[in-house]
């Protein structure tokens, strides 16, 4: 091959490959609409989309079932925590597959700021996997300034796969003062890094 022809070939290959690189970079962004399209065309739906679709967008789709389940809420507060803590509703009748919200009221009786952590548990335990919490104050530690009170939401859905023999269940929360401090940077670093670690905490 003469040098001129070889140089021309090289240039052409370089251009083609560069286009491919750009194309794939664009393809990464195109994947967003493409995934949606693929799911619509093929009817593939992820489990979360399916349940979200039923609970929020189409409350009466087939997957929601007509069973009525009784769910009771129970709270207890560990003596090391100077808080009052109650559900605003003691029990609810719910349909599996539908989204519900219950608020819990908490009040700090002391005058200092206090952090608490709620630990959930479900009875009977066989129902645990079927109670899906979409939002819960128990996902994070909660800090209340002295004398402050808040209402904290719990959003949940009972899965339609709940075994038929379970007709009622109890969700109880024990609220306590966490024994270990929240994982944080060394104290001497704290002032500068406060915004970062605060963001970090929320996760």
């Amino acid at each position, binding site marked *: *091959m003469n040098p001129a022809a070889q140089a021309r070939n*090289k240039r052409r290959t370089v251009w083609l490959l*560069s286009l491919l690189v750009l194309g*794939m970079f664009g393809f990464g962004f195109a*994947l967003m609409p493409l*995934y949606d399209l693929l799911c619509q065309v093929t009817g593939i739906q992820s489990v979360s989309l399916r349940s979200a679709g039923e609970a929020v967008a189409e409350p009466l789709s087939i997957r929601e079932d007509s069973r009525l389940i009784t769910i009771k809420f129970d709270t207890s507060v560990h003596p090391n925590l100077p808080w009052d803590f109650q559900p605003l509703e003691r029990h609810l009748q719910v349909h599996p597959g539908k989204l519900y919200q219950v608020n819990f009221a908490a009040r700090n009786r002391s005058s200092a700021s206090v952090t608490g952590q709620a630990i959930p548990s479900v009875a009977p335990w066989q129902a645990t996997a079927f109670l899906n919490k979409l939002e819960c104050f128990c996902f994070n530690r909660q800090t209340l300034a002295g004398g402050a009170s808040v209402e904290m939401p719990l959003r949940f859905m009972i899965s339609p796969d709940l075994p038929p023999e379970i007709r009622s269940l109890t969700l109880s929360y024990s609220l306590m003062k966490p024994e270990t401090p929240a994982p944080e940077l060394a104290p001497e670093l704290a002032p500068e*890094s406060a915004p*970062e670690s605060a963001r970090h905490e929320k996760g």
Partner: protein
Amino acid sequence: MSHTSTLHDAPHHHANPTGWRRWLFSTNHKDIGTLYLLFALAMLFMGGASAMLIRAELFQPGIQLLDPDLYNNLVTNHALLMIFGAVMPAAAGLANWMIPLMIGAPDMALPRMNNLSFWILPAAGTMLILSFVVPFFPGGGSQINTGWTLYPPLSVQVGMSMDFLIFAIHLLGISSVLASINIIVTLLNMRAPGMTLMKMPIFCWTWLVTAFLLILVVPVLAGGVTMLLFDRHFGTSFFDAAGGGDPVLFQHLFWFFGHPEVYVLLLPSIGVLSHVIPTFARKPLFGYKSMVGAMIAVGTIGMVVWAHHQYTIGMSLGAVSYFMIGTIIISIPVGLMIFNFIATMWRGAMTFETPMLFAVAIILMFTFGGLSGVMLAVVPADMQYHDSMFVVAHFHYVLMPGAVFGLFAGVFYWLPKWTGHMYDERLGKLFFWINVTGFNLTFFPQHFLGLAGMPRRIIDYNVMFTEFNVISSIGAMIFGFSHLLLLYIVIKTIRGGEPATSRVWEGARGLEWEVASPPPFHTWETPPLIRQEQSA
């Protein structure tokens, strides 16, 4: 290069600068290959140090040396240093050194771009290390505790060190895309007359497929981390459900890159084995064509099975079944390569120099890792194994033999060619035995730990897991420190030793063995003539 013209007045030849200029301005494929390999060696030691800290912490249950964030930062840093810093540059170093020699070309097709793709690396490596170090400075924010997979939402919440990391990934990506373009252009346009694609040495084939894979997937990763950057700083919500985004999208983007990436790591080493095994079995490679076919099949199918890393995200039954079947199908071409290697050794006149010892060990241990891979590919089983130490054992059994040991084999195989000196065979074998024993001690017990339920990426563990963790940590110390012996052997060989002939190994075939050892600065300025037996 006007500043060097004083050294040289021949108008036709490139000036050959000396001292640090020789390396900084180098456009010579051999020098750049050496730079890549040295960089990789340095990163191997840094990544190794972080791994040994991890294992030191896991020596006993409880939290002794590190804190949870630092532990996870080390896990992240270890993986990225090893994958992007050690294995990929080392493979690129072999490619730079060997591809022009093997195909009879005077240099890479784009020598100045070659210089650029190497010299981006030290900058990228610095960024990567900064992403680990920055949180320790006042105001440095939180540590990167996401693991190398960088899943949001956690990766959106990490402090500024994540921005260093994103920048490092962009640089590393640019470097490997440039190197890939260079390799493809070289392979497609610079082969000696008479060397058709189907006569090209297998190492070149593996790199052709690897380079295409890199070009196809690295830009997608770059897109993914760019979206991450935008979510972190510019108020977009690509991955934030509250703003209409979806964190799972990142997982798809990541693994669209991540799964082909494992073949990027694997294939160059398969290429090395395809030369080492015929040399020491003194037989031509069995099934050249099927080897090429298998490689292309692995590359192609490998592009469309990525979601086997995401079985637990709640895909539909149809989707998980597809990814499961696709993943299991890949083991067919991978198995074919292994069978070709075994058939090559069959009735060969084998000798077991260090490269061959590594080759045989690779075949055994890589197959084992492939088997645990098939276990993980099975959806209901993976629901149990996912994110456990079993996965860690799996990928170390495929990656260490399939990538790292393959590169070691290549280094021992070609070191006499590069330096002109034979390495110390006795020390080489000693290194092999210590290294492989250490490796198995470290990772074999992790299968049991994973099956018994020990999760990965957690600093502490249940006391019932203590015994196996102790074994694993002791193995890790043996394994880690054995690399000092490797370093010693390499330095010793560079500095002297029995002179190597140009063929070096009795059974070696191919153009690279027809130039002197060490090769002169410029080789194949007039292309060689291809004779029949030089194919494969």
